[in-house]
């Protein structure tokens, strides 16, 4: 018994699909499309004689009458990585392959350069919970300095400065979500006079 009037959008089982394919093979058809109010399935014969399928559930989700989100206050916001433990792996293994540097950081007004998020994800300032941050305002960085981590799809991705200078602003709080391309930090270019 389904709670919804029409029931959930039961898809064809893989056995159903195999039966249809057997039929199509016997009839020599190369394509089959079935559309119902709940789903569509399209079967197409590939060049090698095998079949490919595209399935689309067209009914929207049915929300239960009452949202339970209010129940149980979310735990204090902390590094999500700590909860699933992704922080602890040996860094040589845990870190995703080095991301291409953001390229020469665009010089903004007054010699500021920006370090942007290379991927969407959660911004962390330290290699693991409780560890000192990679950089603080005032830290000197070089092009290859790791200044933060972005956790995307459970992988810790190092963020490189991509420029040399002094960190003048850290724009996000630790543990905050950053969309791809968001400015994470600003770096003051070394003044030629100071050299």
């Amino acid at each position: 018994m389904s709670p919804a009037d029409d029931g959930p959008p039961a898809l064809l089982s893989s056995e159903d699909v195999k039966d249809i394919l057997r039929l199509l093979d016997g009839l020599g058809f190369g394509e089959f499309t079935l559309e119902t109010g709940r789903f569509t399935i399209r079967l197409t014969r590939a060049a090698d004689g095998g079949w490919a399928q595209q399935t689309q559930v067209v009914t929207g989700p049915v929300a239960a009458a009452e949202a339970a989100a209010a129940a149980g206050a979310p735990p204090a916001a902390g590094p999500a990585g700590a909860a699933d433990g992704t922080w602890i792996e040996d860094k040589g293994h845990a870190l995703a392959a080095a991301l291409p540097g953001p390229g020469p950081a665009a010089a903004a007004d007054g010699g500021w350069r920006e370090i942007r998020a290379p991927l969407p994800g959660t911004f962390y300032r330290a290699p693991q919970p409780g560890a000192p941050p990679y950089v603080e305002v005032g830290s000197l960085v070089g092009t290859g300095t790791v200044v933060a981590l972005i956790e995307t799809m459970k992988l810790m991705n190092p963020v490189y400065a991509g420029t040399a200078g002094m960190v003048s602003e850290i724009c996000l709080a630790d543990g905050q979500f950053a969309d791809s391309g968001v400015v994470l930090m600003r770096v003051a270019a070394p003044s030629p006079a100071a050299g």
Partner: protein
Amino acid sequence: MLHRILIANRGEIAARVIRTCHRLGIETILAVSDADLDSQPARLAGRTVRIGPPPPAESYLNVAAVVAAATRAGADAIHPGYGFLSENPRLASACAAAGLVFIGPAAEQLALAGDKLAARALAAGAGLPVLPGGQVHDPAAAEALAAGIGWPVLVKAAGGGGGRGLRPVHSPGELAAAAGQAAAEAQAAFGDPRIYLERFVRPARHVEVQLLGDGDRVIAIGDRDCSVQRRYQKVIEEAPAPSLDPEQRAALHRAAVAFGTRLAYRGLGTTEFLVGPDGGCYFLEMNARIQVEHPVTEAVTGLDLVAEQIAVAEGRPLRLGQADVTVTGHAIECRINAEDGQGRPSPGTVTRAVFPAGPGIRTDTGIQAGSAVPPWYDSLLAKLVVSGPDRAAALGRLGPALDRCEIGGLATNLPLHRALAADPEFAAGAVDTGFLERFAARAAAGAGAAHG
């Protein structure tokens, strides 16, 4: 008898569990974060209940929110899938307190399996071979222990597992510092600073045995090889494990059943073993949940493991005896992930999703054209499972099946899988856990040479 199950998970495993529930006539409620309100599994489920914002700590890892959602939706049980809260004893206890059935083992069994040192001790007590090693009580004293074990050693966190909390150490000079740092990290990540050492065996294969228990009787449901790994994450799995001699296979199954029996295990679980170059088998850990790679076992046994899992959670005795489990043919699973050629994650929106169909082919997925692939969760998009009367037949299906997969809108590791399916070393079978890194390095060198 369960009538309405809340599924506290997402992606392909949510869709997978929903499918079996509906086949069994069980209503489904899917717990969803704000990032998954319109996911494919949300559309497949009978109903959805919002449990919180996208970050896992505020939704899929929030025990109170998950239990409250189940209670309010009138569910009589919670299926936790894998990952997230699936092995968290607090969810099992909270279910018991709320009068809900937790579809998994008892809280004490989860706690024991989750404590890798306790599991190691239990395995040794049940007569299973374990790697030489032991707990490090004092980083300074670790060197004497390591000298007894033999170099190199692996520093492991008691609260880790599944490739988390591992640190290889190759020489005595690095050990004290590595042990100290590992303990501090283990405290921060798992709230448990205990660490232990084990001999670091290479080359090694990763072979695991599927268990099913009803709290009284435990049976083995075949084995799997999961040696094709990158950064300790499995990429390809197969059943049965290739190139084990019959005595070795029987010994592994006996060891796994002995461990499960000692635990009086109830539910689906997997005991993981390391198989060394000399053929020696050593207990590694137990995963007290359904595994990502369970479909390869289903393909060669004809069983629906989720249905069996639900049946024992209902309190029924096992419906199968050991003699009823027969393994026929061979199956190979490819994990299709949203990641580029270098293993970098690739969240985004799926614009096209085409999968192969036909005899000996199964695809488990939670995406369709238009699906969001959010940055907060793991990168698994789909599992392609091919099977045939033997390994060669399954491999023969793999390449053409992969060629028919098309996922648009984001980068995937389909090119890696296609290259692996055509690789002679993989085709020969019984590769070790270092194979994929070597393969990737070779592929990168080849690409460099081609461009140079």
